[in-house]
């Protein structure tokens, strides 16, 4: 079983990101489960949401405490939240940022990737300048980082859930897939 944790802020589409990922993994033949942190969501407040995927039926019905990989949709969270909490050694951390963090010491023992999801979202007019909706760009980068799910599966999930704005979201996925910078293991 693989467990994924998304960090974001209320209003950034963090929960939707995990739903889309779950739907894409399901399309790709996995059993899936996705859910938000069982809490109260407010705009701007830190939000967590999760995806579980496995080849067989997923029986575990608890919060995700030891994720295999983590995505951080808002780099300002890095100052207030320990995004590596419970992360398994060697796990990937994807950060929405044009550049890698200046101090890499908190990420020792993990793998790091970053993508400028804000810029990609703005290029495709997703959200506004102050509140870009970065979730689909993050999923595209994530798919490249893990080598799954396939882009066609993500596109199908977007067409199901974001039908009104499917094309620009799918383009954001493709751009992020191409542009994500995979730094890999941090010593």
């Amino acid at each position, binding site marked *: 079983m693989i467990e994924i944790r998304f960090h974001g802020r209320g209003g950034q589409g963090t929960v939707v990101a995990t*739903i889309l990922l*779950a*739907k894409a993994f*399901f399309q790709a033949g996995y*059993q*899936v*489960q*996705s*859910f*938000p942190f*069982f809490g*109260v969501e407010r705009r701007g407040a830190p939000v967590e949401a999760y995806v579980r995927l496995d080849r067989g039926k*997923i*029986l*575990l*019905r*608890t*919060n995700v405490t030891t994720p295999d990989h983590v995505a951080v949709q808002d780099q300002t969270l890095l100052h207030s939240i320990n995004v590596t909490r419970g992360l398994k050694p060697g796990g990937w951390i994807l950060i929405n940022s044009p550049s890698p963090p200046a101090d890499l010491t908190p990420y020792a023992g993990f793998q790091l990737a970053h993508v400028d999801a804000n810029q990609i979202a703005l290029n495709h007019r997703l959200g506004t300048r102050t509140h870009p909706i970065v979730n689909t760009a993050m999923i595209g980068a994530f798919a490249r980082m893990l080598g799954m799910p396939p882009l066609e599966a993500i596109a199908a999930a977007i067409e199901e859930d974001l039908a009104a704005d499917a094309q620009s979201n799918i383009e954001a996925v493709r751009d992020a897939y191409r542009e994500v910078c995979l730094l890999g293991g941090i010593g």
Partner: protein
Amino acid sequence: MKRVLEGSHAVAEAVRLAKVQVISAYPITPQTHIVEILSEYCTKGLMNARFLRVESEHSCMAALIGAQTAGVRTFTATSGQGLALMHELLHWASGARLPIVMAEVNRALAPGWNIWVDQTDSLAQRDTGWIQMYCEDGQEVLDSTLQAFYLAESVNLPVMVVLDAFYLSHTYEPVDVPGQEAVDRFLPPYVPKFQLDTAHPCGFGPLVAPGDYMEMRYHIAMAMDDALIRFGEIEDAFAAQFNRRYGPVEAIECEDAEIIFVTTGTLTSTCRLALQDLRAKGEKAGILKIKLLRPFPYERIREELKGAKKVAVIDRNFSFGAGGIFAQEVRAALCNTPDHPPVFGFIAGIGGRDVTPEMLTEIYRQTKNSDAPQKESVWMGLHEVKYAD
């Protein structure tokens, strides 16, 4: 077709497929997603139903009592405080023999203000004359909601389909959503046995003197007993159409089990995982999942538990001054059976705390290592409370 659906939406899909005619609800977390999507279906014309907005849950149940008496299929959903506010009219719905269906998302009662799972809200309605079905996953939620209409209408009693807050209501997972034609083959249209009809006026809810009231109550008792038989028949019809069956209880590896967990709701799923691990280590464990609280499947429970050396009931609820509510029910089912196994009661996951495989394994270990229960209930995973091993 299998789709990745939220538990709340699994309820809503079943309500749409059941062609409910009147929906009334008052929003309360964590139930909100159910009626949110149903109101959207009504607005978009995907359902031919009236959606009645009301000022409280009490009014909501009153509205459904009126609508169901007028002869239509009705539905509502609520949680926690909302269900508590409905309490008076829950008795009215069953007493008036109205087959109203409700989705109840288990939410802890306040104070402390808590929107997370705790079954005490629905269990506190145990004696209102409603049938209650507890669900384990999104598929069971959808299937049970469809079955609920059939069962309610065949015995003229209301049904509550109960699901865990967040662990089920807000969790997306693959769910097989049947087509309308298949559902129509399973679920007959609602034909009221009595209704408001100006052509044939009659009285509803009049004064009933001591000479008749007891018989009316006895009829409800008989209908509730009948519901257990009808549930089996409805499951047969459902299995013939959809090839899925749950049972009033489900016995998992109980044949040779020495210690049997008794579970309800989503923690059953996690317990299945713990069971795989225990079995792999050679431990003779089993699970008895209870789906029906009312009517309570006494016979099946006695039958499935009779071979066990010990029974460990896990309650995500509590009756103050007594104990876990399912533990009480199981003890009551067993007490007249000679040489029945001792029943250990464990309280876990109250107010939305995780019940982990490790906690379930610890429950197994404590049960295995004690000859007899030392107290009515053992509270699992408490902070800052020390008790001797």
